[in-house]
């Protein structure tokens, strides 16, 4: 196995930041760590990147115990921290040169890699400007670029799109895909369910320091037997309305909250009119309707009873 994590624990005094997680990373895949803030994603990747030591557990990279021998992974690792980790008073070029040299690049090879990476991250025309003059999105892209220069075999990105504009976000997501195509394995942490869905081959869902589920998107959806959902907001809810909806053969579950009715159902075209007929018979006024396909947000909700962004 490329990267193997077993029984990993990290406690900060009484806080169980990571509480005994196991997962594997296959070479060449993009694996996502999905979870809300405080789930333990950043602590997990800090341990994988050798920045902090776990209280217990093991991390093997290509068969080497990197807790005992951090050097075994450091040269192969490109780490993109959640916060921008660059020298603001230096130019983008000076920053890239420095981080490249740290990983042993020099001369023409370094210049060539800087040219290549700055094209991927889209900052070629701003390379000579000071980083403190960059926009937030550009800083994030340069932050990624600094981790890519030495052609790392494994790249860890810690929530690289938090707080940036949609354009830069798309650029970053495309860059990650491109990096992966060139052969790097990617570990990507996020609390944006959409990013994990579109980017990752496999997803590990974390909550409160524990790994609560992992697999492909379909495997995760199968875990909870998820159906399509429709959420109706009506003028008032009464028992007869709920009973009539539950009687419909394509409805599998009905939940209510305030004036909202969440219905799990088989969302075919003909079923919409049948549902509307029930509302009409009950003389209830429909205020709004929201149709939802099952997603990771719903998986998280089903497994933890909380929304991903809570």
């Amino acid at each position, binding site marked *: 196995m490329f990267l193997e994590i077993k029984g990993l624990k990290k406690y900060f005094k009484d806080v169980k930041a990571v509480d005994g997680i196991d997962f594997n990373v296959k070479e060449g895949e993009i694996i996502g760590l999905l979870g809300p803030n405080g789930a333990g994603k950043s602590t997990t990747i800090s341990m994988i990147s*050798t*920045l902090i030591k776990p209280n217990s557990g093991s991390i093997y990279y290509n068969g080497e115990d990197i807790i005992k021998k951090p050097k075994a992974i450091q040269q192969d*690792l490109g*780490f993109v921290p959640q916060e921008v980790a*660059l020298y603001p008073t*230096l130019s983008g070029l000076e920053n890239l040169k*420095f981080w490249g*040299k740290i*990983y042993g690049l020099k001369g023409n090879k370094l210049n060539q890699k800087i040219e290549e990476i700055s094209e991927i991250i889209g900052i070629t025309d701003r390379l000579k400007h000071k980083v403190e003059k960059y926009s937030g999105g550009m800083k994030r892209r340069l932050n990624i670029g600094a981790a890519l220069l030495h052609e790392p075999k494994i790249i860890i990105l810690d929530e690289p799109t938090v707080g940036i504009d949609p354009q830069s976000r798309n650029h970053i997501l495309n860059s990650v895909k491109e990096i992966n195509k060139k052969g790097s394995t990617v570990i990507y942490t996020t609390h944006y369910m959409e990013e994990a869905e579109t980017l990752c081959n496999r997803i590990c869902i974390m909550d409160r320091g524990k790994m609560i589920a992992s697999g492909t998107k379909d495997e995760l959806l199968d875990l909870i037997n998820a159906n399509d959902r429709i959420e109706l907001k009506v003028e008032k809810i009464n028992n007869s309305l709920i009973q009539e909806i539950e009687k419909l053969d394509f409805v599998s579950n009905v939940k209510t909250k305030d004036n909202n009715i969440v219905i799990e159902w088989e969302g075919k075209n003909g079923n919409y009119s049948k549902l509307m007929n029930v509302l009409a018979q009950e003389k209830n006024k429909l205020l709004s309707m929201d149709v939802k396909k099952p997603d990771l947000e719903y998986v998280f909700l089903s497994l933890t009873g909380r929304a991903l962004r809570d």
Partner: protein
Amino acid sequence: MLNMLILKLKLLKDDKIMIIIMTVMALVLTFVFSSSMGGTYKPSVVIVDNDNTELSEVLIKEMKNNNLFSSSVESYDDAKSLIEEGKVIGGVLIKKGFSESIENKEDMNISIFKVKDSMEIYQLENILKGILYKFSTSYNTAKMTADFIEDRGISINREQEIKDVYELSADYWKYKNPMKISSQVIDVTNEGSYDEIIHNLIGFTLFFSTFTIVFVGGDILQEKKQNTWQRKLISPVSKVSIMMSFIIATFIAGFAQTLIIVLIGNYMFGVDWGPDIMVVLILFAAFVFAVTCMGFTIAGIVKTHEQLSSIVPIILVSSAMLGGCMWPLEIITSKPLLFLANLTPHKWALQTIKRTAAFGLDVKQVLTATGVLIFMGIIYLLAGLKLAQRNN
């Protein structure tokens, strides 16, 4: 490590305002104090003549000829007021019967009155001893000469004869000062220099350089804040190399500042650093090393640059005070304070640089102080590394 060192030196431009201010402050003080060393500063003393004889007038004339102090003759009450008000450092009282004591070769009726002991009073005492020795020897020589001539039956104007011989004798002493040993201690031969001035000059140079060193070293906290520190820690470069690059860059910044102050002080303001400036630079280098490592330890104790900014002035001002940068340790009598002074790098650097400038110590003679400073630096370095390891 070389790449990290080059980067740190490049990043020194971020600290340029602070470095410039600290250098300029020290240079301004160098200018002010070296101007004083040019002879414009003279401690004032008062002379009270209760004898009012020709001999006491001759002594007063001798004292007024001295270039290190400015003196004026006052009544006893006025002199007392001036001393109490701090307008003069002390007074010389020529008591009644001074002439008779000279004539009878008895102890001279002279005393110094003062409010407190100071370096200036010690110097006044030494100078007065020299003047009195010269005065009594010249006077007795003149008197013996007059006696000798009269014994031979030659008729002379005795008073005139004594005066002439006295002047001849005093004039001879100008070229062969019998108080040479004493004059070296107070640097009388080098007219115009003043011990307290060179002390303050070195003290302020050390004091201001510590601020630059500790704040440049404190950039480690800035790196932690901007996350570049964490990024370096997970790179293949060893932690020791990362930390050493910080220490070396800080040392270079601190020593460069000190070097500029020493050289500008020497060549532009005429500050006398002694016969071998290299010895002074060796001591400054050892001091910069010790303070660099001290800064590294402080940066390991505090968590943020803001905490560093609030704690550093307290540490540096108090250690400079304890170490004698603000006033000479010679006037401190408290044993606990003198013991604490030994724990500061300032004391070892200041005392030895001062003695090197005054007496021209060579490398061998400053080995102890240099060794103590390097030892302090190593202790701080080990403590700093331990703290950094804990923080990481």
